[in-house]
């Protein structure tokens, strides 16, 4: 650096330095380059540092002041510009680093494959929920049952033709695999006094198996007993259930039937869910599907359970869960439920 430059020359050299600096910064590609530039101008032996030392060589106060002001100005420009450039270079570097960490977001996630609930239990849960919301409690009884509870106490004596209605598995003369969930009714009545509002879901067994029957299936039994229960109430409760389960618009009809433990007895039909009542293979062209059996509790059953039939009345009903499930999911073969093929089960 020539220390013998005139003050005017010194002043104009500052402009050269500024111009050169601007073009250097422009070309800085990374933080290291920027550091070099910083050293070139403001380092110990930097260009600007050298000019600062020249300040003392100017004697004219006015010239000295002007040079000093300009010197400061250039110094500030350099510092600010470097700071700004540094920021933008850092941003860029972060961006580049993120890009190197990029993943393929379209790869499949690591799933936690939940198991599935058996379709029968899906529907059973739905049925329970509806009745529980109506205030019914849930009760239980043995699957291997005394003949007494399965038949006798339900007004089906030993030599009654009604025994032919159900093919029974016998364990001994006095013990059977329950053919329906109705014995739970009796067991509950023996233990508790009215009012009574219960359902009893569970497995039942019949000694016949073909394309539409399995030796074991599921039923839900229901019982309501109080001082003023009528056939109207039976209709009210069962219509409410059917409308909750199959939808509000589902047609329902009650027609006379026979069960030894209820009188009057009624079968409950719904408008065929497949053909909407027009008639199809499933409903045997009648447009109706049988879904429930029901009736007013036969006073003889009350007497045997120790209830006074003059004081209490009630209704009972029963439904097959397999049938409800088949209707709900349009399943056409009851045997699928017990094959437990995972390709079937995973659909629910």
């Amino acid at each position, binding site marked *: 650096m020539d220390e013998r430059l005139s003050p005017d020359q010194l002043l104009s050299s500052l402009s050269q330095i500024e111009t050169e600096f601007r073009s250097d910064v422009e070309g800085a590609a990374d933080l290291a380059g920027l550091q070099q530039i910083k050293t070139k101008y403001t380092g110990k032996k930097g260009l600007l540092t050298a000019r600062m030392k020249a300040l003392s060589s100017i004697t004219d106060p006015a010239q000295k002041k002007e040079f000093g002001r300009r010197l400061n100005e250039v110094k500030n420009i350099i510092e600010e510009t470097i700071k700004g450039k540094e920021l933008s270079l850092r941003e860029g570097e972060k961006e580049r680093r993120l890009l190197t960490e990029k993943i393929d977001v379209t790869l*499949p996630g*690591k799933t936690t*494959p*939940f*198991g*599935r*609930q*058996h379709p*029968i*239990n899906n529907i059973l*849960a739905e049925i329970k929920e509806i009745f*529980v919301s109506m*205030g019914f*409690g*849930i009760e239980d009884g*043995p*699957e*291997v*049952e005394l003949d007494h509870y399965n038949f006798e106490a339900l007004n089906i004596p030993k*030599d009654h*033709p*009604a025994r*032919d209605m159900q093919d029974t*598995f016998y*364990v*001994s003369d*006095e*013990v059977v*695999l329950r053919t329906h969930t109705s014995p739970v009714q009796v067991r509950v009545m023996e233990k508790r006094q009215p*009012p009574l*509002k219960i359902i009893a879901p569970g*497995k039942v067994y019949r000694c*016949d*198996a073909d394309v539409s029957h*399995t*030796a*074991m299936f599921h039923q839900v039994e229901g019982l*309501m007993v*109080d001082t*003023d229960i*009528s*056939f*109207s109430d039976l209709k*009210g409760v069962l219509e409410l259930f059917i409308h909750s389960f199959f939808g509000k618009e589902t047609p329902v009809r*009650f*027609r*006379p*039937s*026979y069960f*030894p433990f209820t009188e*009057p*007895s009624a079968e409950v039909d719904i408008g065929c869910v497949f053909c909407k009542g027009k008639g199809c293979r499933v409903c*045997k062209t009648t447009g109706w599907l049988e879904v429930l059996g029901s009736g*007013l509790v*036969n006073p003889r059953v009350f007497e045997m359970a120790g209830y006074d039939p003059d004081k209490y009345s009630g209704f009972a009903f029963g439904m097959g869960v397999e049938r409800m499930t088949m209707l709900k999911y349009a399943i056409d073969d009851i045997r699928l439920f*017990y094959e*437990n*093929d995972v390709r079937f*089960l*995973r659909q629910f």
Partner: protein
Amino acid sequence: MKVSFEWLKEFVDVRVSPTEVADRLTMAGLEIEGMEPAGDDIVFEVNVTPNRPDCLSILGVAREVAAAFGMPLKVPDTGIQGDLPASEVTVEILDPALCNRYTGRLIKGVIVGDTPEWMKKRLEICGVRSLNNNIVDITNYVLLELGHPLHAFDTDKLFGSKIRVARAGEGRKITTLDGADRELSPDMLLIWDGKEPVAIAGVMGGEASSVTSETRNIFLESAYFEPTSIRRTSKALGLKTESSYRFERGTDVVFLENALNRAALLMRETGGGKIHEIVDAYPERYVPPAVEAAYDKVNSLLGTSITKEEMRALLGRIGISTEDRGEKLIAFPPSFRRDVRAYYDIVEEVARTYGFGNIDARNPKTELSAGILNRREINIGRIKEAVRRTGFTEVINYSFMNGADLDMLLIPHDNVRRRHVRVMNPLRQEDSLMRTTLVPSLLKNFLYNLSRGTRDIRFFECARVFIDDGGPLPLEELMLGGILFRENLPCLWKEETPSFFVVKGALDSLCGEMKIKGFSYVPSDEVFLHRGKSADVMLGGAKVGFIGELTPGVVEKLDLKVPKPEIVVFELNLERLHAAVPENLTYSPIPKYPAVERDIAVILDESLSSARVMEELKGYRSEYIERVELFDHYKGKNIPQGRKSLGYRITYRCPDRTLTDDEVEKIHTGLVAYILGKTGGELRGV
């Protein structure tokens, strides 16, 4: 029962379509299950419930049609005119309790020949095979038409021209019409001639006295037999006939005379001959019962407000006459409606004729009740849900098994699972026992799915097992069983936990979810499990189940194509799990002061179980140890043969202040020395 629509129309003059008739009958309680065309006729498949034997005939169905449409019933005239010769056959009832009435007619000089075509056709439409024997076919025809079973004897084969009705007594045998020799038990009611039994009353005739092509003189029987007696006899002999089916449900003691006459007239019409005077043994005439029913009671049970007049008219429509007695009515059901005996039978008849559809639906007024969902129901639901969320899919299996299933699992003879309940009449021998364990069914589910290409199988079942404990009914216990098998297939995100620990982890998660405390695992001695890879599941000191890999001896029997398959099964007693679910939860405050964590790795003998080491660690007394967690289990490089390294993370915390480093150091040093001493281990260099 099959009913010809054309035949029906002879009894009631319906003009509407068969479909409409079917609909009305169905809604009146006589369900028409199907309709099939048969030539220019239509056949109804009628489902007659056991309480309505009166509907087991064309006449019976016609009565219902007449009532439903409010039309008159046309019953064929069965009067036999003119002076008839006296009967040469005598009838004596020795057991009036089992035979209330016995009528008969002698028809002499009949020609046994072909059955007329029209009759054959009708029999066939209704599902009865014609024997092309006018006499036998007529008895069947009248049975279908009027619902009363008849029997024709060859009079010349009746010893002494006598009919006696009496029980079999000891040591009797008979050869029935179907050619079978039948041993009779003493209480069975028989028809005898002057010497021998000639028929099993109401069930089947004997061969010796039967009508053949040579028969010229017929004795026709029409009787009332007591239903229970007929049912017992039919059951005991395993002989169910159109006759026994009707007698055991109840026949019409009054109308049986008309059936007798109808058949006699048809016989004369087709085979000629002379009808003799009726013989009628009728020791005690039938008195129709008077059934009382209060109008109010009927209405309150139905939820209706039917007037007195309307109610009596409804009953009148189905042939039940009534008398009004102010608050109540007295009903006199006809002799074919023996099922109407009490006020609730009247309620049913009123409801049926009024129409169930005309009764309004209402919502019952009842009290609210507490505790609707019991704790058991809720807990078991949650337990099943927790298992499902750990990846197991629910199956439902039949409750049956057989002895071979237990043999396959090597179950010893004194094991509790051998105390099974046997079904006397199984559908298949494979299903002759009630399950005492869920494992055989789960294995079948596994095999079924494996053979269909499923490579990752995780199933659970929640069902009862049945243990014969000597009581009248077996012990029924709700079990939770499961099976896991997966082939090691390449997959995107690695999962390297051994199958045993996947299942064990599922059970641990389940206990965590249910807040069940005190769960532990000890080596199991279940014979069907791999001795080194199985555990009994303990809860509060008692065994509640097991978990483990099937032992190679059992796996071999499965004959799988997979080499060395790891099949893990488990079974837990759900009742006991549910009992261990805490009833109430109480919150504990969240710690205010920071914790300090220190790790320790101990090299120790391989045979020392991690549970033992954990127990020892927890045995070290310090109020500041908050948690001990096993985070590493290592064998191999840098660890001597027969030894393993276990790494633990210890969390120290004081509830009311921050622990200093010095304090932690002191306790930790103490703990390290303690555990090394207890286990004989050494610290693994860090």
